[in-house]
């Protein structure tokens, strides 16, 4: 039925150009080579010349190979049959399960009408005090984890996924090391979360172009669940690889690069994905947590920089802990007024004192004289680091608040904390556990 073309006139990078007629922009084609078949997507039309990016890469494609246009944009199966399954970057089964083709949906669909969104208002509890207490995660939030290669960001994502009270977890892996993929699979399996998860995995060994599809596929599937009232958590790791793939394709297409070789539309490309995070009026929600590695720990690098302008805050993972400075949840104000009356007080006070602790540390390292106040701060700071910041701490928000009061009482008098009198009367611990 579909027309087959065999006159490939140009192959450059992973982009091939073929002469064809009646082809739609962004349409999908199947390229058959001696090595097998691959999907490809139309990215430019110029008269009869059709340029396609080949998902499996152009290596081994011959100018005489067949290109069959399928007459529709990229689609992916959706629905509950996908649960517990693992697919690759173009949606083909990676586990031993059958290929799926029901409820096909177009990927990269239109954006949500803002008037159909609601103001986010439900907290996602993670059991991590640095998140729950200090930078609460909110349902429908889009939040990246900024870190450098080598930090345990994948472990953090997996842990949040397991502990978060969501209906469905979707993992989109881009340029993932194979052992990281196995780590996610085994961790979720061990915790019994695999049956409510779907994996779309592009490993570092897979062709670059396939990486570009992962966020769109993951989010298109998530959107279908959310429209049916499900609360979905989407994990994307690592978005920097996605951006690098964008860079590669745009340079191949001879586009003028803007900043460090990245295309001028990097912001729009990232926004099109992150903005899929949504709380639908009268239906479910999508929350996005993404890992963004910062080359050289540089937050002004185009990838973290553009990301920061799009997302609703960021977690800054450094030295194996979530740094309180540099981390931000823009939506925390929507939820932390409704948890416990002392939540905001503890949050503000502990962070201010921790900032003073950092100043005292600096003073100490410069060799200036330490006052008794400085010594109190040093004691407090060390306790804060081990009892709150450490990622090994796994307690509920309420327990974290109680622990906060304990730490304050252990180190300071009530007046020194600057907390309002009425709060002190209600919450200041009567007995202090000494260590």
């Amino acid at each position, binding site marked *: 039925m579909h027309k087959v073309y065999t006159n490939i006139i140009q192959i450059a990078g992973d982009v091939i150009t073929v002469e064809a007629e009646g082809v739609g922009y962004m349409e999908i084609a199947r390229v058959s080579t001696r090595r097998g078949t691959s999907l490809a997507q139309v990215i430019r039309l110029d008269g009869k010349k059709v340029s396609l990016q080949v998902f499996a890469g152009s290596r081994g494609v011959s100018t005489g190979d067949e290109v069959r246009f399928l007459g529709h944009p990229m689609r992916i199966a959706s629905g509950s049959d996908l649960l517990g399954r693992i697919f690759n970057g173009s949606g083909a089964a990676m586990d031993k399960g059958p290929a799926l083709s029901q409820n096909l949906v177009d990927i990269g669909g239109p954006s949500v009408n803002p008037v159909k969104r609601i103001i986010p208002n439900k907290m996602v509890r993670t059991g991590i005090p640095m998140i729950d207490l200090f930078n609460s995660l909110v349902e429908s939030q889009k939040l990246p984890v900024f870190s450098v290669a080598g930090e345990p960001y994948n472990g953090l994502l997996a842990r949040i996924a397991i502990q978060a009270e969501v209906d469905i977890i979707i993992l989109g892996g881009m340029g993932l090391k194979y052992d990281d993929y196995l780590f996610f699979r085994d961790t979720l399996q061990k915790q019994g979360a695999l049956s409510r998860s779907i994996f779309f995995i592009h490993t570092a060994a897979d062709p670059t172009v396939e990486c570009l599809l992962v966020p769109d596929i993951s989010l298109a599937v998530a959107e279908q669940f959310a429209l049916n009232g499900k609360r979905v958590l989407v994990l994307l790791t690592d978005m920097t690889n996605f951006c690098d793939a964008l860079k590669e394709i745009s340079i191949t297409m001879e586009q003028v690069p803007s900043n460090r070789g990245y295309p*001028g539309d990097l912001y*729009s490309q990232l926004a099109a994905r992150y903005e899929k995070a*949504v709380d639908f009026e009268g239906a479910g929600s999508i929350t996005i947590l993404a890992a963004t590695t910062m080359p050289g720990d540089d937050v002004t690098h185009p990838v973290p*920089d553009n990301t920061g302008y799009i997302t609703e805050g960021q977690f800054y993972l450094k030295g194996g802990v979530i740094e309180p400075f540099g981390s931000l949840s823009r939506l925390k104000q929507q939820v932390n007024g409704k948890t416990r009356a002392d939540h905001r007080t503890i949050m503000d006070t502990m962070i201010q004192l921790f900032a003073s602790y950092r100043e005292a540390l600096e003073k100490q390292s410069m060799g200036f004289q330490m006052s008794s106040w400085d010594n109190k701060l040093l004691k407090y700071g060390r306790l804060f680091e081990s009892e709150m910041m450490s990622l090994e701490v796994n307690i509920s928000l309420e327990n974290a608040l109680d622990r906060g009061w304990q730490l304050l009482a252990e180190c300071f008098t009530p007046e020194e904390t600057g907390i309002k009198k009425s709060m002190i009367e209600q919450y200041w611990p009567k007995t202090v556990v000494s260590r």
Partner: protein
Amino acid sequence: MAEKRIGRIVKINGNMVTVELDNFVVQNEVAYIVHGKERLKSEVIRIKGRLAEMQVYENTGGLKIGEKVEFTSELLSVELGPGLLGQIFDGLQNPLPQLAEKCGFFLQRGVYVHALEERSEWQFTPLAKAGDRLRAGDRLGFVPEKIFKHFIMVPFNLSGNLEVTSIAEPGKYNLKDTVAKLKDGSGRHYECFLRQSWPVKIPIEAYSEKLMPVQPLVTKMRLIDSLFPIARGGTYCIPGPFGAGKTVLQQLTSRHAEADIVVIAACGERAGEVVETLKTFPKITDLMTGRPLSDRTVIICNTSSMPVAARESSVYTAVTIAEYYRQMGLNVLLLADSTSRWAQAMREMSGRLEEIPGEEAFPAYLESRIASFYERAGVVRLRDGTTGSVTIGGTVSPAGGNFEEPVTQATLKVVGAFHGLSRERSNARRYPAIDPLISWSKYRSFIDEKVSRKGHQILRKSHDVAQMMKVVGEEGTALYDYLDYLKGEFFDFVYLQQNAFDKVDEATPQQRQVYVFNFIYRILEAEFALEDKEKALHFFQRLRQLFRGWNSAQWNSAEFKNIEEEISLFIEAKLKKQDQPINA
């Protein structure tokens, strides 16, 4: 009209489509791509021989070579008339609530809805009478819209003297009813309606002269009004890295600024922030009018995931609506968040046009486009002697928070005030995070010049001492320097910083600012009898605490007076004896 001009698509690259046609083409005219049942809006942006290059305001997925394109001869225009206030439009002026009714959760491409409800009826009162000779922009009559008299004006596109041949009786009319008939010098007749349309990229100039912006526009933000003021009809920009609080600042301004009408252009930013504005504004009562805030607000939103080309048009749509209300003698404030996204949209298009790139791949015409946008602000004297103004405040999102980049630099050249946000200030949680050491304003404040100069001076001195202390430590700093440091910090904490979550402190009216700043001025000038650094620190900490309470007290309430009394006594006790008491 001649026969319809039709072209065919020959090339598709992202949202740029090249069309071949055998007829004439008008630069910037609107054309529709016919794709099955869908009609996609697009605009001609370059013409090369028989080829017209067009930016498409929609996703171009699925379009094919050879598809039909219909040209309209019309420039991209907006509808102007009663019913704009309280609305939420996309970048092409489609009302989003109506789109939601039609299409549900998602924005379907190719669906366009009239900006104004044609059948809505308005009570028209004529002002002109038959035989009057009028010009474009002169008033024919008015209809009530929310709390305003919405003047119905002679269409801006007519030229020369026009004679009113007939005008409607007072009564209810919808947008399709003729309310007046005009005749020009050469005998041509025109019909006037309650609405008219105007091309967005051309400024409305139906006024007698443009005036110097001198009157301050009070935002009730102390740091802005007292040190870096904005003028009615002026321009200002807010550049800052992400997370420094640009959007929060814009939201506070939109709530409290003393303008008649606020037009918000959410350009390429987060949908979540627009949602917050559009869901909360109808519930917030405006203190100046006693009506919901949404009654005097128009929101234009093209969020970051909506089609890029419409992002560019959204700022023009917003400024045209602002100019329209200015023509009625109103003071309009336009807040554009963020102009960098608009510049990026230009960059994307320029790249597709394969133009020679300028710095950071922005097009060479970036500066002139930014300049001509900000130049649409101004105070104007209308032909009837009244004045109206458009004030433009734009945020800039510089890459990496570096103000040296092209968009920030191009903007700084043309604005009258610069409110630079800094990462250090926001990390230290000092809000608003406008850095007083780098910001400037060319407008005059309502604060006495001597007083505000002292404010600037103490901030600089305090900063210098703080820098020095980092090297030599507290013990190596002289007491008088240390006192200046404390004074600067005190001024910053109790006056420049404002708590957006405190009902009283979030907005400080002009009168209170003058009063409190004068009070603080005397503290900054005073010499205190403080023996050592620890006592000085303690004194200013206590003072800071007292002021915090004062800031939260209702203006001129008993509580306000009590705290003032307490502060005065506290200060007096520490003054050097030869000085006058502080409250004299």
